[in-house]
């Protein structure tokens, strides 16, 4: 795919072309490193893992998704966990729910690598999954917790298995992670993170009204090179903001599945995108000249088709 595409001439510096990706990887690895400092070097800044942790023996942080399951499993959880979950929920409510996926989750590195390898190897095999499957899986795992009385998703949650495994010992958990890598590589494009993971779905809903958003304020400069769609883990989220001007849609990427990864900012040679807030989402030129109200959306199937034929 990438080979057949016409190379976009980009005169920006290497730093500007990779800034957000590097920042993101740095953040992901730093968070892991902070957790690992304790067991490896005896410097206990953060104890625990992503499910629940204690920073500097003072700040509790708890994953609200796992606590919600525990609550549905009819457990009256303690105040420490509740406070921790509130802090985390408030943070992602403001910053953007799926910033968790893009900036914290260790599985993201695995699936991004799988996608990168997929493109490099030119693998086309793609079992199409519905992008809403994750929401159904989210509902299923919550329902299952209520029925079984267990924290159900934790039995197979690759996010916590990987993160906990790296810190506390992985055992044969690597096979599960390898499975996800291979699944994303050869079976389904962006299969796990963008289609199946209920944790991502939970954080999507959590950050549905988040403040920090990517904006396409400079969308008039877009030359439709489609590079952003190529790198975006959730390409559906871009089109309303990027192409919606004639329909009166503002430049803010307001879709809940956006992971705030910022890769679209990196790849856009026309500097269409930048980080901003959800506020002031008005078309700076002519809101009155709004079109007939039909949303301009690119059908995801169009991309799949395009990819398959090129």
């Amino acid at each position, binding site marked *: 795919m990438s080979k057949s595409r016409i190379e976009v001439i980009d005169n920006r510096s290497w730093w500007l072309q990779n800034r957000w990706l590097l920042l993101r990887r740095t953040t992901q690895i730093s968070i892991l490193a902070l957790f690992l400092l304790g067991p490896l070097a005896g410097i206990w800044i953060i104890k625990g893992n992503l499910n*629940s942790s204690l920073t500097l023996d003072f700040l509790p942080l708890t994953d609200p998704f796992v606590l919600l399951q525990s609550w549905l*499993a009819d457990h009256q959880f303690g105040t420490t966990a509740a406070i*921790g979950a509130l802090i985390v929920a408030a943070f992602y409510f403001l910053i953007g729910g799926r910033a968790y996926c893009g900036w914290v989750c260790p599985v993201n590195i695995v699936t991004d690598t799988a996608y990168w390898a997929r493109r490099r190897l030119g693998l086309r095999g793609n079992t199409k999954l519905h992008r809403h499957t994750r929401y*159904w899986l989210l509902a299923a795992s919550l329902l299952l917790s209520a029925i079984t009385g267990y924290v159900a998703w*934790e039995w197979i949650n690759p996010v916590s298995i990987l993160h906990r495994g790296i810190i506390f010992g992985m055992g044969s958990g690597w096979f599960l992670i390898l499975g996800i890598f291979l699944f994303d590589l050869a079976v389904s494009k962006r299969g796990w993170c963008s289609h199946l993971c209920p944790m991502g779905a939970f954080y999507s809903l959590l950050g549905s009204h988040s403040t920090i958003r990517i904006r396409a304020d400079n969308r008039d400069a877009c030359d439709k090179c489609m590079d952003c769609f190529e790198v975006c883990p959730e390409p559906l989220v871009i089109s309303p903001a990027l192409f919606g001007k004639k329909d009166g849609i503002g430049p803010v990427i307001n879709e809940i599945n956006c992971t705030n990864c910022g890769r679209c900012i990196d790849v856009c040679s026309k500097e269409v995108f930048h980080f901003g807030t959800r506020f002031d989402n008005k078309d700076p030129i002519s809101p009155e000249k709004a079109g007939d109200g039909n949303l301009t959306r690119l059908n995801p199937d169009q991309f799949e088709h395009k990819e398959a034929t090129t």
Partner: protein
Amino acid sequence: MTEGRDSKKKRTGSGKASRRRFISDTAKMGCGVLLAGLGLGAYTRKTSALPVQALRPPGALPENDFLGACIRCGLCVRDCPFDTLKLATLNDDVVIGTPYFTARDIPCEMCDDVPCVAACPTGALDPAITDIDDSRMGLAVLIDEETCLNFQGLRCDVCYRQCPLIEKAITLELRHNQRSGMHTMFIPTVHSDACTGCGKCEQVCVLPEAAIKVLPIAVAKGMSADHYRWGWEEKQEAGGSLVTPDPKHQYNLPEGVDYDLQGEGLIPKKQSIPEPFPEDPLKSLNQGSGDGL
């Protein structure tokens, strides 16, 4: 023009097709998710049994509640100063991510301040456990009398000596040594009202395979029926027997005879033995005539 009309027609046609596809896609997704959910449900049920020799940290809720309460963060593991606790991986038979320990490897050292319970953010380890002596991680059972050295009449006593609650959780009960016929056996005896299941005894047992083991309480303990009453206790409480005493036993023996329970058999009563030669010979004569002869 016609082309345009055709394409319009086509579009409406494809609209119908896409609706059909939407429905079939949704159905497929629904079935897939349902299947995945059922599979996950079965998997959680199947794997939720705790191996007998895996012990939960102090204060852990009953296993079924624990699996709904523990969020597998490992904070208890981090605050355990003796590296007793570990989190289960996919290799272990314990539910993945949950804390446990193996007494024979590293037992619970029963810290006074119970740091693992204090570290638990959810209450999966019951915060009501502030005194480690109140915890019940399991129950030690002297499971093999055939190999326990004390049962052979030796004085090993190591489990007893190392018990953090010596003389409460484990006592030595004296018993006659039938083999030698002249010695005493000191039988290590666990008392469930004090044993916390810390596993120290199992760890220190000198045998290659421990004769005393910590088991889950549900496995180790029987249960007395609610309506059972121990007569001797009731008697003591009431200050006397609560049932009508048996009537004094009556033997239907011939008159003038006693029965000896020690094997002598019938013993004539002394009074009834006629004196062979009374001082007054006339008296015996009179006696004989009194018998109706």
